[in-house]
């Protein structure tokens, strides 16, 4: 199969996938930040099995209590995720007691979880997250540069892996911007962890393809580079698809049977695994080829043009 020849198609497909996400990101509200990023309180209320309360009733009751700005998300199984401004112990108790007596008299153990994040911590979280992602990218770039030191232009491999990584990150963030608009899905610390895991996986997958290129470049040093890349992709595609297939089935099992608490986290991983597999073949390797092709015939000192 000719993968390399179709590289412009791959780039266009990626752009088409990324575009809607970017549109949602740029147009307000973009990503919907959870309390981990803004500060505030959130809680999970679980009403009794026979209560049959809908989201609107919960919302109305919160408005009656003076929490107009509160957001409500239905988690299923009579559970609701409620986000409010920062609540102190007294406010919290009042809210829970009031919601219980007015919506589901006599229910016990309604408050299943409570979170509070002060604005100070929230601001730090955002900064730390940005630094963490940047640090991860730099660390990986340097490692790849070093690991591919025996082939010509090892620098390119590092940079191509980073391009693929950014590609995957943008896809995930874009999809969450869309979900935030459609389903009020919020991003929180768990989302960040998931994003970092996706970065790890994306690079993991890219390295496997690059490893084959590294090997083949040394074996078939007289063949043209695009041909070597194509050969390497052909040789590794079985493994790439099988690995992501096993991960995808594991993740789907977790999403279907695991608790609601980490469902969003797993969903990020699912998107990330698919995007990561695609980008290692369609982005990372193709960036190497494009870069190589345009360098041909250009004097060495101008090699920095990409």
């Amino acid at each position, binding site marked *: 199969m000719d993968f390399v020849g179709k590289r412009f198609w791959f780039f266009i497909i990626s752009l088409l996938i990324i575009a809607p996400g970017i549109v949602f990101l740029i147009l307000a509200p973009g990503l919907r930040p959870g309390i981990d990023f803004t500060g505030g309180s959130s809680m999970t209320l679980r009403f009794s099995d026979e209560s049959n309360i809908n989201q609107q009733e919960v919302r109305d009751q919160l408005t009656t209590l003076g929490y107009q700005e509160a957001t409500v998300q239905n988690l299923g199984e009579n559970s609701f995720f409620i986000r409010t401004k920062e609540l102190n112990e007294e406010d919290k108790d009042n809210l829970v007691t009031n919601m219980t007596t007015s919506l589901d008299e006599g229910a016990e153990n309604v408050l299943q979880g409570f979170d509070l994040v002060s604005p100070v911590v929230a601001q730090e979280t955002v900064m*730390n997250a940005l630094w963490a992602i940047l*640090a991860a990218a730099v660390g990986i770039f340097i490692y790849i540069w070093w690991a591919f030191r025996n082939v010509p232009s090892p620098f390119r491999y590092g940079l191509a892996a980073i391009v693929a990584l950014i590609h995957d990150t943008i896809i995930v963030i874009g999809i969450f911007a869309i979900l935030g608009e459609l389903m009020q899905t919020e991003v929180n610390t768990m989302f960040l962890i998931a994003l970092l895991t996706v970065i790890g996986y994306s690079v993991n997958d890219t390295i496997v393809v690059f490893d084959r290129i590294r090997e083949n470049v040394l074996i078939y040093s007289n063949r043209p580079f695009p041909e070597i890349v194509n050969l390497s992709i052909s040789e590794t595609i079985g493994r790439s698809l099988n690995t992501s297939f096993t991960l995808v089935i594991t993740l789907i099992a977790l999403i279907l049977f695991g*608790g609601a608490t980490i469902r969003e986290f797993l969903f990020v991983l699912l998107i990330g695994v698919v995007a990561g597999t695609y980008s290692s073949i369609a982005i990372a390797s193709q960036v190497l080829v494009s870069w190589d092709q345009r360098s041909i015939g250009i004097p060495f000192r101008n090699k920095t043009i990409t």
Partner: protein
Amino acid sequence: MRRNARALITIALLITICAGIVGFQNINIRNFNRGGDTPLGLSLGLDLQGGSHLVYETNLTDPTSGEKQEISREQMQSLSHTIERRINSSGLGEPIIQILGEDRLLVQLPGIKDPGRAKTLIGETARLEFRHRTLNAAPQPVESIKPENIKSITVDELREDGKLLSELDSEDKNSQSQTLTSFPAVIVEFDETGLENFEQLFFNLALSFEKAAAAVAAGDYDSPADQINVTIDGVEELRFTTLANSIRRLEDTPRYGIAFPSDETGMEGIITKEDAEKKLGKSPKIEFAVKKGYLDEEIGLSGDDLKTAYAGQHQASGLPIVNIEFDDRGTRIFGELTTDIYVKQEETGIRDQIAIILDGQELISPRVNAPITAGTAIIEGGDFTMTRVKDLALLLESGRLPVPIELIQERDVDAILGADSLRKSVIAGFIGLALVLIFMTLYYRVPGLVASAALIIYAVIVLAVFKIIPVTLTLSGVAAAILSIGMAVDANILIFERMKDELRGGRTMLSAVNIGFNRAWPAIRDSNVSTLITCAILYWFSDQLGATVVQGFAVTLVIGVGISMFSAIVVSRTIMRVVALSPLSRNINLFIPTGAKNIGNRESV
């Protein structure tokens, strides 16, 4: 072959040990204790067992200038000790307290039912006080019980079970009179107000009696119990002093019996019932006074006046001591206090003490050997150990500078939700693992089966390592563990794809296995190292924040990745070598994946 046999035995041994670790609920070898009543004895995080996760930020400002001050490591430690002590003594369970960065404290309360109360306890600032403890306090008349509150005063024989001999029914008399002793006692009948007030008085006496008994049991004879002074104004004055243990409430009546002392210490001579009745006369009056066993007088010396407190050793004897230093004001008050106590000691022989009280609880009450006017003192004690003096110094420090704290992050998870999440994750994990095993075996055939065995071994080793370290398993940790299964699968897939290439190239089974593993190694190494880099960054990121969720994920993933490399490179390889040498290897079709025969064939290029 011999090499394979040796490797196989080592692997089998390792699996047996790991399976044993996972299988036994509790492991106790000398000081090494693991396990508990959780599934497989693994240690569970708050999101799986329920509990509270609280992050506090300290906010230390200079009392004079109002500027924000740097907080020292020692202050953070003493703060953490204070919180730990308060929660432990409240019976709310055992907190896990961790210092985050420079000025933050993470308090985890596993399984707690009432996070509100814990938060109140944590929020209080510690208060340290030095008080003058007088041992020969003057009796204080009890004003709350007035003559009109007393209805009658009589004398009777009071039995130790709170019954009067004169009122026993005959049956009771016969059965028990042999074993229970009785004493002559004054019997006072109260009205409603009087009864209530005397009850309170009796309660305080009894409390002090118990405390003193406990102190004596601990070797401290300097904290005597409170006493009651009884003065009866009858035909002749009857006056005695006694302790809570000689007072009884007469069952179901508004009467109390107070036994006359049975030795010479409480009054002059021993009195009989008849003598007492004679002295009492027709219309006696009674007055009570309480003589405190010791009296703590506030002298305006508090933790604010303490400059520092630290553990040390006595210069001459080398015994552990606590050094304390006061500031100018403290030096002056402490100087006056020690001088007063010393002078009284010289004049009267009564040895007063300095009571050091933290959060209303007595830390220690040392005596005074000499007036101390220089502002530095040492506290020594016969039973002091290095640990004890260190603890004391930390406690003193915690009260010296009460550090205000502010709650900046809270995460409460209900135990039911936690248990639910755990159950679901375990089920999902099993389903996921089963699906992977089925896929691997169907697609890769014999190598797939080998990989499946390696995966199960991998899972057992991971669980064993989690239990031994122990790694606190959180929901995100479970996710990481399952993700690392994916990575373990990946390593195996990489190897089999390489092996397949070599088999196509016409190599023998054994050399295909060996070369396949060697060729796959750089890819496995580099991809896993990149994951480890991400984990290291995650760990750093979470350490900054106290995000234990993130930390759990990173730690779990690192362990998972490490063991997955081991399982693919050592376990799978050894088993594959053995399989390659077995008769199975003659049928090459069992080793080439289904549906992949035309992909990746090097000869086709």
